[in-house]
């Protein structure tokens, strides 16, 4: 996993709540057996008409936000299916940070396991970022080490994150390799279970 700390980019405002993982990556694209190549299908049915032409009114098709690495959305982002293809698509498309008031639990976990930083800000802070970002492209600096989001207009937001996830993201750890260091505990647990049976 690639470490993540500072991200500088304009934000992409997606003013919707309860965005489910079926919208993020539709089922017809879940058949690949690789982790790569999902970005082209991100928000497919919101991005494209049935004939494949782009929907002009969808924010990802707005050239003002091209190259953005920060997606800002409303509450309960990533609800529904556990498909990790959703964060794979988000990352493959180019987003490394998501900002929302809240996330579905499984989606949140799936993000941090892939080196995507999911930031929680308050409802009003997210509203503010979305409104500003809709008016004109707004550059943000995200700093994980300091747990801050600073907009180019000077506004600054602090966020909290579990220290364990923070370290994982900053260092880009392979969690499985980390858990192997606890192998003695796992073996001891298994032996104890066996004795009880």
């Amino acid at each position: 996993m690639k470490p993540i700390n500072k991200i500088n980019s304009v934000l992409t405002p997606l003013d919707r709540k309860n965005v489910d993982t079926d919208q993020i990556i539709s089922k017809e694209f879940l058949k690949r057996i690789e982790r790569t190549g999902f970005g082209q299908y991100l928000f497919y049915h919101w991005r494209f008409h049935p004939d494949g032409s782009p929907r002009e009114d969808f924010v990802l098709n707005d050239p003002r936000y091209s190259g953005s690495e920060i997606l800002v959305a409303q509450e309960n982002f990533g609800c529904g299916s556990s498909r990790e293809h959703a964060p794979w698509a988000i990352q493959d498309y180019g987003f490394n940070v998501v900002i929302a008031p809240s996330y579905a639990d499984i989606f949140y976990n799936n993000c941090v396991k892939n080196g995507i930083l999911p930031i929680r800000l308050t409802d009003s802070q997210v509203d503010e970022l979305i409104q500003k970002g809709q008016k004109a492209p707004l550059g943000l600096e995200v700093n994980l080490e300091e747990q801050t989001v600073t907009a180019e207009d000077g506004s600054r937001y602090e966020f909290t994150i579990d220290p364990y996830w923070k370290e994982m993201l900053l260092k880009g750890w392979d969690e499985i390799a980390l858990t192997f260091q606890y192998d003695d505990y796992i073996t001891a647990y298994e032996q104890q279970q066996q004795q009880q049976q």
Partner: protein
Amino acid sequence: MAKTIIEKIWEQHIVYEEQGKPDLLYIDLHLLHEVTSPQAFEGLRLNGRKVRRPDLCFATMDHNVPTRNRDKITDPISRKQIKTLQENCEEFGVPLAGINHPDQGIVHVIGPELGLTQPGKTIVCGDSHTSTHGAFGALAFGIGTSEVEHVLSTQTLWQSKPKTMQIRIDGELGFGVAAKDVILAIIAKFGVDMGTGHIVEYTGDAIRSLSMEERMTICNMSIEAGARAGLISPDDTTIDYMRGRRYVPQGEAFEEAAAGWLALATDEGAAYDVTHTIHADEISPFVTWGTNPSMGSGIAEHVPFASDYEDPADREALKQALSYMQLEEGAPLSSIEIQHVFIGSCTNARIGDLRAASAIVEGKKVHPAVTAIVVPGSETVKRAAEAEGLDKIFLAAGFEWRETGCSMCLAMNEDSVPAGERCASTSNRNFEGRQGAGSMTHLVSPVMAAAAAIEGRLTDVRNYMKEPVPTV
């Protein structure tokens, strides 16, 4: 100190704990299917890792499998995904109920059926509806593919302890009210993110009166309320269901296990972080009208008006949902015409569901404008239904009787609803495009789906049922 079942199971599974870190939890059962596992197995191969406990894994194929012409999977990518699971299971020694195996079925139907699902177990699967297994008093939750790989390698997961939530359903369920109506009513009342960061325990008289299959329907949709997991404390109903299943202890060992299972039940006076209550009287046969599972009402109601909501964001959400669903504010729900009926999915495709639906359609005909299919939840369910003649009842009424799988719940195989058409579906999600690009889904119980098939529109199933005469 009095403890909830959630705390008891959690504590029994801690392998390692340290201040400031999530707990390292042991996983007792890891269920796998073809869609969320290939990248995990590939990760093992790339790193030269093996499956630590293949004996605690069980795999099947359900999401992609065709429900007719089983031998010919026409989509080459589906075929490859199914073949990949077979090869991975062979390579890593994981037990598999493959496409032509007599135990094959939807992963959340076969786990309980085989007795793999047991009270007190920690159960995971790369599938959000893993919460289904909570019906047995197991701690069961969906995980992503990276976590699948982690469990395959280590049989553990790092988990921060979620908060506990009680949802108590008091009273007695009314005439014609199904388990599906209960969970849809809960989600409509409390919202799609009420459970975020929590494990829910369902309690109360209404829950105690339910069969194991009905309890599975409720726990299945815990994820639709955002909960990490949902469960029900074991009782005699649980024990009766477990007895004699293939993977449970037999004879005296069973009685011993059963005593342990019953002891897991939440202690009198145990405290939850949050408690919500709903009375059975509030719940009637339900349908959804929108694009998430909280957008629903009793069948006698109508589509809401924007003016019903105070929050502008809710009004906007209503507008977006109705635009997708091609519905007008204030439209009576029983006026909505449907073109498809799907009876199936991990929510509602067990034998009890099929019995209930068949009783409604027996001797009647599917409306000429409707295509209706029944997709049993497993091979075992299918065999049992055929032994009882349920297939004949459905076929005579004009339903199609299919092979098992996830099918039209998410339309990953060829079973889908065309754009612009509507489906009354016993599945769990009415998200945009869930049953096919541009399709519109109305979530209902199996009996409501059966009644809709006959009338060609959403309708109150109670008109098709004889109210039992109360016994004095």
